[in-house]
């Protein structure tokens, strides 16, 4: 938490402001941004409880998510920590994507790349694609308490690389194939979801799966393919439901 607001007179020099290296930026000040106008904003901040943001779209979207079933599910099963924030941020990104607000989405994506690690980014993407509810439904087993489910959700999110793989344009087919193979065979995740969002990536993902089938890895999968004017999208969902005597067997799970 930062300090409480003191109300020094404008430009009182209460903190160290070093103007010279940022002089150029300062000179960008528009003439209509008078000190009186800034003081009005300051007064609004103090009196009216105002959240000032550079891009309001994300805050509006997050606010909107509070009415959704996905948000309620996240609140139910994810403890108050960064995972919860990432999942909610993902919902907001999905909202911007659905609305077709590409300018805002671009800005927010850029800011999320800037502020999170690759693993954390993957959790936000996982939520953006709408897979969180699916994960909870897989984890839930008869007799589990809410706390049991929360622990399992936390564990799965902490191992998100073993459960969710967005296919990127930078992925070569060989790299993708090898990563899927190693993950399925050695990490043995109880489910594994992949998504590709353009034709080339979809094609790579399908080919990688076909290669694995040809090499007698025993698994089945379901896929959800959507091609429209915005491009192709393919989600492949692999679920392990291994009988004790059949190691590496992965059976069909229905997706969407």
């Amino acid at each position, binding site marked *: 938490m930062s300090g409480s607001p003191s109300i020094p007179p404008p430009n009182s020099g209460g903190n160290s402001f070093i103007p010279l290296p940022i002089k150029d930026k300062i000179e960008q000040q528009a003439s209509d941004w008078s000190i009186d106008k800034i003081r009005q904003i300051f007064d609004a901040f103090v009196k009216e409880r*105002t959240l000032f943001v550079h891009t309001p779209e*994300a805050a509006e979207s997050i606010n909107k998510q509070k009415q959704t079933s996905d948000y309620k599910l996240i609140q139910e099963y994810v403890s108050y920590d*960064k995972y919860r924030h990432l999942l909610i941020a993902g919902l907001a990104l999905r909202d911007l994507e659905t609305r077709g607000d590409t300018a805002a989405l671009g800005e927010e994506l850029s800011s999320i790349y800037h502020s*999170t690690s690759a693993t954390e980014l993957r959790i936000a993407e996982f939520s953006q694609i709408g897979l969180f509810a699916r994960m909870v439904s897989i984890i839930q087993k008869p007799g589990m308490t809410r706390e049991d489910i929360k622990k399992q959700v936390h564990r799965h999110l902490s191992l998100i690389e073993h459960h969710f793989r967005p296919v990127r344009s930078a992925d070569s087919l060989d790299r993708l194939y090898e990563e899927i193979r190693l993950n399925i065979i050695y990490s043995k995740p109880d489910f594994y979801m992949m998504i590709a969002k353009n034709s080339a990536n979809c094609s790579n993902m399908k080919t990688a799966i076909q290669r694995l089938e040809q090499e007698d890895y025993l698994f089945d999968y379901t896929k959800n393919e959507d091609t429209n004017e915005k491009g192709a999208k393919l989600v492949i969902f692999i679920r392990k439901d291994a009988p004790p005597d059949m190691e590496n067997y992965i059976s069909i799970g229905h997706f969407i």
Partner: protein
Amino acid sequence: MQIKLASIREMPFKARVTLLEMLGFGVDSDGFVTENGKRVVDKYVNIEVNVDRLAIAPNGTLILDDNPVSLAGYMEEYEVSIRGD
């Protein structure tokens, strides 16, 4: 808690600096927000906050990096909803 939402997208750099000074903060030579001479770190994503990516929340004047994860963190922690007026 209900709050208002306001954009500072069009607010020039100097105006942001002035506003921050009114709130008791400073800005260093690289454009990072400071408090008592130290750069302010966003409590949700643990990065230093730059004036170009600034969010200011009213709860004790919380300075954040403007990104969806921090905003979600803030709105969750303080149970904030945005007033639609």
